């Protein structure tokens, strides 16, 4: 027997409509578990350089992106998948400057500014020092816990949520008969345990109500080996996190 493969015009129409409806969603994905790199390009006198060419290269995958600075000499790459990057700025009549090992963490906007020296584009200046630790691009208060800590620290039961308590202002939730505190639930800055927002790869991971049977406030707990990094944000975090009064808790799993 042969399966009938021809689609009626109606089903084709529905398919096209579905594709159109779903298409914009793909371009909006994964911003809450990514970071950003931005900066200003200047010459030695402090004048901004518009139209300078900026190249961003992921040091892990060598995937690269290009951008040009705007009229105020500013460039922005967003969203940027977390990882280690090389940023390079070049402009006619100036030496090219390359900055290596710029690390982007979840929800971090890293500032990489360039001051170009007059010279040939083919001359290259390598800057390997880390960008300034002071994070002036975001008012969010939080603690990033990287894969090395997630993997190495002794976690009984391999429950990564206890690492959230490495952030200042985070304490375990109240003692009760359901074992909420034992499951790693926490109170951030004096708020209830269920006022925290758990995100896994930018997807909502909140138990709709407290999970009464298991005493958890999250749905799914990935094994520690699968976690690339997580970020506990306790104050002034970006509006896209919404929903939670207490803290936001995006995790990025390896992909």
């Amino acid at each position: 027997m042969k399966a009938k493969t021809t689609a009626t015009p109606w089903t084709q129409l529905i398919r096209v409509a579905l594709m159109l409806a779903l298409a914009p969603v793909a371009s909006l994905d994964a911003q809450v578990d990514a970071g950003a790199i931005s900066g200003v390009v200047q010459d030695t006198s402090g004048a901004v350089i518009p139209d300078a060419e900026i190249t961003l290269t992921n040091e892990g995958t060598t995937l690269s992106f290009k951008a040009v600075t705007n009229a105020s000499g500013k460039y922005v790459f967003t969203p940027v998948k977390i990882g280690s990057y090389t940023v390079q700025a070049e402009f006619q009549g100036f030496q090219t400057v390359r900055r290596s090992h710029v690390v982007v963490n979840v929800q971090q906007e890293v500032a990489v500014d360039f001051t170009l020296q007059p010279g040939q584009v083919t001359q290259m200046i390598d800057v390997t020092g880390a960008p300034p630790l002071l994070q002036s691009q975001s008012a969010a208060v939080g603690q990033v816990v990287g894969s090395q800590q997630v993997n190495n620290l002794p976690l009984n039961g391999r429950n990564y949520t206890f690492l959230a308590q490495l952030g200042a202002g985070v304490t375990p939730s109240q003692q009760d008969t359901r074992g909420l505190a034992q499951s790693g639930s926490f109170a951030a800055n004096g708020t209830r345990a269920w006022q925290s927002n758990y995100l896994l790869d930018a997807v909502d991971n909140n138990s709709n109500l407290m999970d009464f049977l298991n005493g958890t406030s999250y749905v799914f707990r990935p094994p520690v080996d699968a976690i690339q990094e997580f970020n506990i944000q306790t104050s002034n975090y970006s509006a896209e996190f919404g929903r939670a009064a207490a803290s936001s808790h995006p995790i990025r799993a390896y992909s």
Partner: protein
Amino acid sequence: MIVNPSSNNVMVMLPPSADPQSYVPFPDFSRGAEYLATEGSSSYNSLQATFQRRFGAGLSFLGNYTYGKCRTDAPDIFVAGETGGYRAPDLPGFGIQPDYGLCVFDIRQVVHFAGTYQLPFGNGKPFLHASSGVVNQLVGGWSVNWILTLQDGQPFTIPCATSTTAAFGCNALFVPGVNPIGGPHNVDQWMNPAAFATPPVATTVGQQDFAPLGGAPGQVVGPGFHRLDLSLFKEFQTSESTRLEFRFEIFNLTDTPNFSVPGLSGPGVSVPPGVFDYTNVQNFGKITETRDAPNDPRQLQLALKFYF
């Protein structure tokens, strides 16, 4: 904040002998049907400090210190083991504000200190870096990791030993000049039975003296939480791109028991009667449960992890 007071409650002070049902707005319906309302408030103030060393010379650590205080009249609505509900939410002139007190998860001081240290032996390290193959395999690749957790206790509420009204709750008062945690202050008797007193009993229907309802909740703070988890890793480079990691993890290295507040039960553990009854000198303040139920002794875990 969202709270759940209840409806069809008694709205006047009643002596304990009175029948509350005849004093509710709708005597044909039962008392205390719950509803949610956004009328609670909460306040939190803290000093927070973070102390971090990014990886260098084999050492990285992350420490934090929080000195905080949380007060609320909005007990958590979903979680069991909560400070008892409101004493008299519908009593005019009383309401929920007198139940403003320490949050159940309030912890005054918290210290967390975690880190990793790669021992300085073997190739590429300060000591014994010229070791040959076998020696290097023996002395190199060791690292130690730890999490130290030091937390103060969390508060709990001691109710009155006997009813002082027919329908309202009551919190025990302090006896002036007596230390509430005087006495043994251990798992057999965490707080001092001589330090708590029952307020006067209501005598007339509709009296305006609210003294029988007692004082604020959260009178006593429970035991703190102190714990050190430690692990020792040994890494073997098996080829250029693969390595084998032997992990020896010790949870609760010092074997310190971390006790709950009194009155919590767990698997196989029941709470003796009178844990909150300060007239029961035998059982008052007895702690029967640890934080990590049913118990959390020192645990050792050995593991092999192969990276490829």
